[in-house]
């Protein structure tokens, strides 16, 4: 377990952490905006940003600020859950492959390779378009298409660690494989995994937004930033704000998580060792 604490994070990462916390606070406060986000005012379609509508209105006259805020919890939750799925599946497969070695490793490595050889968006598209639409499907689709990266990583880490003394000692003492993995290897592999997780969240949020933008993402009414953005190209000439504000929210979030991950990586690796 990294005992670094917040103090060891570089300054930029601390800012990022603050942003992430702020985002979650916004997400928590979003139910207050939910009703405003749904109010349709056909008479005020595509209104430019003003005092009453700081972000302008969308193609049904709904306040864009309210919509962007209301979309926050969904975008964040999907990102986090998908990254978690990816990490858990990836670690399980990768660690097993690395630890077991031999035939198991061969087979599992092939599986990892299969997943890696797919352009992720291709696979995502196929999954998202072809499975019944729901938040769960999107989470699974994103998680299952990115676990291979984490698995490769976990496998490499486990290979590095498994022949170290304390692991051998545990084996000699008769500990079972899962126990060794969880109690001994996991704590040491954790720092890079946490870093990977943070990057994973950023990627997952981006992936979900891309899918929604392409029209195969979350079904309404559970709208996310990507979903709001999907209407932007149609009105690109009249309503630049439809593209700017949701995209800005997306960008800020992704950048914050990436920065946080960078900072965690810097904090958990000593002396310039490449993580």
């Amino acid at each position, binding site marked *: 377990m990294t005992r670094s604490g917040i103090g060891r994070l570089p300054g930029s990462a601390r800012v990022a952490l603050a942003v992430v916390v702020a985002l979650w606070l916004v997400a928590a406060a979003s139910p207050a905006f939910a009703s405003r986000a*749904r109010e349709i005012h056909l008479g005020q379609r595509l209104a430019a940003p003003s005092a009453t509508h700081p972000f302008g209105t969308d*193609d*049904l006259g709904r306040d864009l600020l309210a919509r962007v805020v209301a979309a926050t919890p969904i975008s964040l939750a999907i990102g986090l859950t998908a990254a978690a799925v990816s990490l858990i599946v990836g670690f399980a497969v990768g660690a097993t492959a690395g630890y077991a070695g031999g035939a198991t490793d061969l087979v599992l490595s092939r599986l990892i390779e299969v997943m890696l050889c797919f352009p992720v968006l291709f696979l995502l598209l196929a999954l998202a378009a072809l499975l*019944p639409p729901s938040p769960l499907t999107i989470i699974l689709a994103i998680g299952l298409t990115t676990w291979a990266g984490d698995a490769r990583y976990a496998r490499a880490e486990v290979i590095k660690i498994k022949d170290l003394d304390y692991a051998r000692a545990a084996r000699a003492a008769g500990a079972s494989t899962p126990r060794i993995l969880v109690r001994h290897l996991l704590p040491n592999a954790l720092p890079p995994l946490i870093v990977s997780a943070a990057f994973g969240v950023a990627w997952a949020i981006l992936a979900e937004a891309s899918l929604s933008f392409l029209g195969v993402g979350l079904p*309404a009414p559970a709208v996310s930033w990507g979903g709001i953005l999907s209407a932007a*190209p149609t*009105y690109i000439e*009249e309503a630049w704000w439809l593209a700017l504000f949701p995209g800005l929210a997306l960008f800020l979030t992704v950048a914050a998580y990436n920065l946080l991950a960078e900072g965690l990586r810097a904090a958990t690796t000593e002396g310039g060792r490449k993580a």
Partner: protein
Amino acid sequence: MRRAVAAILLLAAAACRARHEAPAAATPVAAPTPAKAEPGLGFLDGARDGTPQEGGTLYRRLGGEPTTLNGILQSSAFEAEVLQYVQRNLFDYDASLRQVPGLAEKLEVSPDGREYVVTLKADGVWEDGKPVTARDVVFTIERIRDPKVPAPVYKSLFEDLEQVEALDPRRVRVRFKEPYAFRSMAFVLPVLPEHRFAGQRFLSAKDNRAPLSNGPYRLVSWKTQESLELERNPRYPWQRGTFDKILFRIVPDNGTAFRMLMAGQVDENALDATLKARIESNPPSDTCCRVVEFYNLDFNYIALNNRSPLFSDTRVRRAMTMLLDRASLVRDLYRGSARIISGPWAPDSPAYDASVEPLPFDPAGAAKLLAEAGWRDTNGNGSLDHDGREFEFDLLVSAGSDIGRQIDEMLAAELAKVGVTARVRQMEWSAFVGKVDAGEFDAASLGWSAGDPNPDPYFYWHSSQCPPNGQNDGCYQSAEADRLMDEARRTLDADKRTALFHRLHKIFRDEAPAIFVVNPTQKFAFTRSIRGVTTSPLGIFGIWPGPLGWWKKAE
């Protein structure tokens, strides 16, 4: 992809399968009365001033790439718009929806209504000099019937074909198993040159990409994803167009196409309400634009699954209709360019009874109806319930349809106020159709687009056509409506038939098997110099001479 504009999804035109006795000759559909006088609306484009410029190029826009140029294999408007210049139909519809001669000059029907004899014109000829013969027609129909040929548009029209044979080089006899009043519409059909397909596999024949022309123009080049170029066919014996060349530009995105129209790079483009507003607010330029707006036979509706416990009660369905503020839709979403409908036809269809008023927008009345039908908030959670079931459902809409989504969201907002939860779910097209055609939905936003003038409601509202047998997706079942539909299909007299349709209309309004929304206008913009545009209830393109009659005013 950004599909062609505005009109809502699900282009499912009437398949002529109803059983009917045929009249002695093709029954002309009653010429529709012109739309109410509104600025810019009308059936005929009266701009006939000026002298036609001979020669030159007409620049047309295609919203997507044609997948084939084989008339039998065609499936979408992109193919049809190109093929219209290159391969003539046996018969065509004119602007008043009458069936007029094309490659054929006469259609005779036997007294029992099952047998038709098509007589080709004497001078129909392919561009390689060979004449268009009865053998070509027989070949075409046999290919349509071939189980190895996917002919999406025509296959169902010939499903109960019994026999087809060439009587002599100019006459073809076609016999069907049963008589049917609208059967003559099956002969609005292109013809393939038999001699070109000999020795090749039909589906991969070269002619599918480079068709032999028997029409006023022939294909010069096809640059995939970019353009198709046509030039005059010197062998064409009949009325020529004024242009030497026609260039189709393939522009999937509406925004780009609009900009090209403004710059004069295309001469025509379909518009939606947004683009029309943009033209009207833009300063006029030398080239752009004249806007032609008219009502056709298309309309949108929200299908309700009549078999679901939510919508099996007529009162609930009426309440649903009363909760959609259609007047506001017309005013704000369509900017006035739409008419509310009270039944499954556009007001210009002969089946439509203008005296049948649509249900009013009445949330209070709707709430009362819902309560009468047993839907109350018994558990105090803000949502109506009945027999332990909450009133909530998924409202499906196809992902490509902006207007459909907007209408649905309006309805959902109003429903929420009375305690009904509608979740608007956008689905990708193929998955959407899968669910709707299987009847696995509660409510779905659909659109109806007329490929031909057939007003027969049988396939969409008769109880025998519930999924998976036909397209009565909501499975509306009414013994009386069934009886009227069966009788109308057997009725030869046009007036009696219309009276039956009008009675049906009243039933559809009262029983609200679906929420009938609006009949929107079709809007097109042309560069200023284009003249001779004719509009019709079938649109601008599917008629004769249609685009062939366009001309440019000489400077």
